C-alpha cells in the first residue's frame, strides 16, 4: 500500500509553496481586502508562468497534465497562503465544468486559455438569498441567449467567462457565456477578496455545454457532479488554511506570557489546540483518500468527497475560530491576521453549499453497509 503523495507531486507543492511564500504574504491579501486591487494580478501571472492553473488540464488542451493529486497539493498551498486570486473559480469550477461537460470544440477553445492564466473563469448559480435549489433557478436560456440575474457570483467582478446554470424550457442546463458587456455589481462579502458580484444577463450570447446539450444530462445533476469534484479541491484549501491557523495559535501561545508563564502552558489552551490538531488530522486523512478517489474517478468519489468536505469544513472553522481565542483581544483587531483565516474559513464553508448540505449529501451517498 502506498497512501501518500509521490515525490514528484510533493515537489510541485514545494514549488508553489515557495513561490507563494516569497510573493504572496499577508500584505498582498490585505491590499485586495482593502480594495486597492480586485485580485493579486502579479501573483496570478506568477502562478501562470509556473503552469499552476493548468496542473490537471490535459496536455492536448494546453495543460501540464500532472493529475489531480498534484492539483490537490497546489490547492492546499493556495489555502494556506490565502492567495487572493481567482484560482478556485477558474480551476476547480470553470475548468472542471468544461473538462466534464464541454464538447471537444469547447474544450479546445477555453481550456488552453485557463491553463495559461490568460483567462479567468467562474460559475454562476445562486439567484436568491436562499441556498440554490432547482426550484429557485429562474435564469433562462433559449435561442443562444441568456437572460436573468445571478445574485452571488464568486470572482464575478474579475471573471472573463462563466458557466451558468439556467432554465431551458422545463429542464435545467449549463451554458457558457462571456462576461464582456454583462452588468456587474460588486457585493460586500465576509471574504472581500473573492471579488463577488451580481451578474445581470440581458440577451447575452451563450452556448450550452456539449455534455448537457440535447437533454443528455440534466443541468442540476451535472452541477452536483462538478461540485463533488470541486469539493475535494476546496477541502484541500481548507486544510491548508486550518494548518496555518493552528500554527499561528501555537506560535503565539509559546511567546505570549501572562501570569508569569507562557500561555501555551495552560491546559485550557493546550487542550483547545490539541482538539484543533485532531480535527485537522482527521480532515487531512479524509482529504488524502478523496484525492485518490478524484484522481481515479472511483465509485465512492461522492462519499469520499463529502467526507473530506465535511471534516475539512469543521477543521478550518474550528482552527480559524480558536486561533482568535488563543490570541485573546489582539486576535480581534484588524491589525492581527487572525481574521483573515476566520473570513476565509467562513467563506469556504459556504462556497459549494453549507455544511448541512454536505452532511446530507454524505448520508445520501453512503452505501447501505457503510461502516
Amino acid at each position, binding site marked *: 500500500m502506498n*497512501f*501518500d503523495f509521490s515525490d514528484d507531486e510533493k515537489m510541485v507543492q514545494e514549488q508553489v509553496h515557495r513561490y507563494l511564500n516569497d510573493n504572496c504574504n499577508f500584505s498582498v491579501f490585505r491590499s485586495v481586502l482593502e480594495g486597492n486591487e480586485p485580485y493579486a494580478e502579479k501573483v496570478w501571472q506568477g502562478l501562470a508562468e509556473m503552469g499552476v492553473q493548468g496542473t490537471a488540464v490535459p496536455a492536448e488542451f494546453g495543460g501540464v497534465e500532472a493529475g489531480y493529486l498534484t492539483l490537490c497539493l497546489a490547492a492546499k498551498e493556495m489555502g494556506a497562503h490565502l492567495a487572493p486570486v481567482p484560482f478556485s473559480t477558474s480551476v476547480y469550477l470553470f475548468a472542471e465544468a468544461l473538462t466534464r461537460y464541454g464538447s471537444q470544440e469547447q474544450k479546445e477553445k477555453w481550456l488552453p486559455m485557463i491553463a495559461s492564466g490568460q483567462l479567468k473563469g467562474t460559475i454562476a448559480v445562486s439567484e436568491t438569498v436562499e441556498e440554490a435549489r432547482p426550484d429557485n433557478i429562474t435564469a433562462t436560456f433559449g435561442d443562444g441567449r441568456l437572460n436573468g440575474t445571478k445574485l452571488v457570483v464568486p470572482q464575478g467582478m474579475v471573471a472573463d467567462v462563466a458557466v451558468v446554470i439556467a432554465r431551458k424550457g422545463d429542464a435545467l442546463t449549463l451554458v457558457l457565456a462571456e462576461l464582456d458587456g454583462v452588468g456587474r455589481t460588486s457585493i460586500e462579502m465576509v471574504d472581500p477578496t473573492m471579488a463577488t458580484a451580481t451578474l445581470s444577463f440581458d440577451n447575452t450570447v451563450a452556448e450550452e455545454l456539449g455534455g448537457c446539450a440535447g437533454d443528455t444530462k440534466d443541468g442540476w445533476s451535472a452541477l452536483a457532479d462538478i461540485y463533488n469534484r470541486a469539493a475535494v479541491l476546496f477541502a484541500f484549501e481548507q486544510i491548508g488554511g486550518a494548518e496555518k491557523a*493552528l500554527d499561528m495559535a501555537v506560535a503565539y501561545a509559546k511567546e505570549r506570557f501572562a501570569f508569569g508563564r507562557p500561555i501555551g502552558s495552560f491546559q485550557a489552551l493546550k487542550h483547545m489546540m490539541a482538539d484543533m490538531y485532531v480535527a485537522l488530522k482527521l480532515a487531512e486523512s479524509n482529504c488524502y483518500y478523496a484525492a485518490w478517489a478524484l484522481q481515479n474517478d472511483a465509485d465512492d468519489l461522492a462519499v469520499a468527497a463529502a467526507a473530506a468536505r465535511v*471534516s475539512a469544513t469543521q477543521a478550518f472553522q474550528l482552527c480559524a475560530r480558536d486561533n482568535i481565542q488563543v490570541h485573546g483581544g489582539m486576535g480581534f483587531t484588524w491589525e492581527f491576521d487572525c481574521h483573515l483565516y476566520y473570513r476565509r474559513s467562513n467563506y469556504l464553508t459556504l462556497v459549494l453549499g453549507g455544511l448541512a448540505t454536505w452532511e446530507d449529501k454524505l*448520508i445520501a451517498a453512503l452505501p447501505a453497509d457503510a*461502516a
Partner: protein
Amino acid sequence: MDFSDTIEEAAFREQVRAWISANAPEYLYEPLSTSGFGSTRTGDYDPLTEAKKWQKKKADAGWACIQWPKEYGGRGATPIQSVIWNQEEGVYGSLSRTFIIGQGMCAPTMMAYASEEQKQRYLPKLASGEEVWCQLFSEPHGGSDLAGLRTRAEKDGDDWVINGQKIWTSGAHYSDYGILITRTDPEVPKHKGLTMFFLDMRSEGVDIVPIKQANGDSGFNEVYFDNVRIPDAQRLGEVGEGWKVSLTTLMNERLAIGGSIATGFPEIKALVDELRIASGSAIEDPAVRSRLADWYAKSAGLKNTASRAISALSKGETPGPENSIGKLVAGGMMQDIAKFALDLQGLPGAIMDPEIASGSARLQAMLMRSPAVRIEGGTDQILRNIISERVLGLPEDMRADKGLPFNKIPTGN
C-alpha cells in the same frame, strides 16, 4: 497513491490467508463477530481455553508474535507483515486480547532489560500463550500521575521485599507473571526513586481481588503485596531507573492499526436505518443525518489515518504522531453515539435485555463501557497533554511537585 499490496506483500498475504483458512477455529466465528465492546464472546466455549488453544496453534506453526525474533518464539517478520497478519486474522485476532498486555507491553520491556537466559526462558512461552503476563503499574495514588506510585520495594539480602497495592490490573487473576514498578527511594524526586521488577504472580503474599466495575463487569483487579519477596536477579534495569524502563513499556502500547478501532458508527447506522421516530423514518430526519455525517466523517478519518500509518510502515518509515488521536476520537464518539441512539428510542432505549431489544442492549453496553475507554491507557486529558506537548511542542504545565523529594510532595491529607 496505490492501495494494492506490493508483490512481496501480496505473496505474504496469500500465505497467511491459506494458513488461517486451514487452521482457524471456525466454530467461534459467529460468537466472535458479534462480540460487544471490550469483551470476547466464545459462545459455549471457555474464552481462556480457546484463546490459549489458538495461540499455541499459531506458535507451533510460527505465526505467533511474528515480529519478534525467531529465537524468542517469533518469526522475524517486518512491521507491514505484522499488519497484514492482523488484517487477515480478523475476528480470530480478538482471541489474542488475553495476551495483548503480556506480548505487547511486558515482552518489549523484557527484551530490552532481561538477561539472555531470562529471555530464552520466558519469551517463547509468552509468545505461545502457555504463560500469561500482566502489567502492575497503576495504583490508587498513581494513575495519570503514574510516577506518584507508592508501592515500596526494600532490599533485604539478595531479595527485595514488596509492600503496597496496585489497581486496574487486567487479567491478574489468570496471569502467571507480571512486571511491577515500585518505589525504592522515597527521598529523591518522584521519577528518580523507581525500580522495575518481574515476578511470579503465585509468589507468597500476592493477593488478587477482582474489581466490580460501574457497568457490572469485572475485567480488572486490585493486587495487594504483603512482604512479597522478589530475587534481585528479577530486577529490570538499574535501581532508580524504573521510570525509564516504564517508558519502554508504555511506548510499546500496540499501534492500533491493522485491526479497526471501534467507534460505534456501524451500530448507529444499522439502528437508524430501521428505526421510526415522530418525524417518520429516522434516517430521513435532518438532525439525525447531520449527526450521522459527522460521525461517519470522523470514523472515515480514523480509518484513513490508520491507512497512512500502514503506508508509512510499508515504506519502512515510522508512522507519525497522528496515530495518537485514535483512542481520543473513538472513545468520546462511542459515548456520544450511544447516548444519541438511545435518546432516539425514548424509554425503550434504556432496555438492557438483549432478548427483548438486541440493538439497544448493544448500545447500552457501549454507553456503560465508554467512560472507561476515555480513561484507560491515558485519559482524554492526558492524551491532549501528549498531543499538545509532544506533537505541537507547547510548554509543560507548571508542576507543584517539580524537584521535591517524593516524601515531601503534598498529598492533600
